């Protein structure tokens, strides 16, 4: 049975992660040969993943001094009921 656009979208992440069987992979790639829309879908899906990674991977933020002090002060406090 050949794959359609809906099947392809379902299997997409497994395809990109290399988790499809040889037979599934062959069906997946056979669909891509005849469906430029699905090629566009895959490319925009991959671009989405790259964008979220790039946009969120900012260098870590500065640690406010008052938060450092609060954490160190809280460490010294005796535990309630201890």
């Amino acid at each position, binding site marked *: 049975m050949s794959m*359609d*656009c*809906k*099947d392809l*979208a379902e299997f*997409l*992440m497994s395809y990109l992660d290399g988790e499809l069987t040889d037979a599934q992979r062959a069906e997946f790639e056979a669909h891509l040969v005849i469906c430029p*829309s*699905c090629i*566009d*879908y895959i*490319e*925009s*899906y991959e*671009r*989405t*993943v790259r*964008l*979220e*990674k*790039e*946009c*969120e*991977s*900012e260098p*870590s*933020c*500065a*640690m*406010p001094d008052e*938060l*450092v002090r*609060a*954490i*160190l002060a*809280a*460490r010294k406090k005796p535990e309630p009921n201890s």
Partner: protein
Amino acid sequence: MESEGKLLDGLKAGEPAAFEAFVQAQGPRLLAVTRRLLRNDEDARDAVQDAFLSAFKSIGGFEGASRLGTWLHRIAINAALMKLRTRRRKPERSIEEFLPTYLDDGHHVDRPQPWAESGEAGAIRAETRQLVRSSIDELPEDYRNVLILRDIEELDTAETAELLGISIGAAKVRLHRARQALRTILDPHFRESAA
């Protein structure tokens, strides 16, 4: 790592300078991850404090099977997730609204269009960054959390599933749905016809 070994010895011995060095070194990364998950500065700071206090309590039992930073990163994620669970959820849209739809013959209802080249080799523009972040915020929380843990914090599927209390299969499905939904939200902004 020798310096990490010394730091760990200092922490286990209760040396104040070691605790301060630990907080200064690890704090920024923890604040970044708790902010990503909580999207609220005050809650993020509380989660970082909870994470450090929890780590201080159990540092005696830390055996170094993982790096100190990795261990603390997991504790901070857990602290942020606990805070999320106690927070009242904002009304959110169903993930189904963001997923592609198909005709009876299995073809797309809305045929995917190519996206324009970004022309953003190198640094991403501030407006793109803002657009992507606000789009991630539109995702239903259960899906947004998986996306952040897997794609951004780079936890593996098993760790993600364990932290969220779901099966590995469910974590995989949610990640794929979250990426598909994010693609749908970004699509009108990146289509060649919109560029």
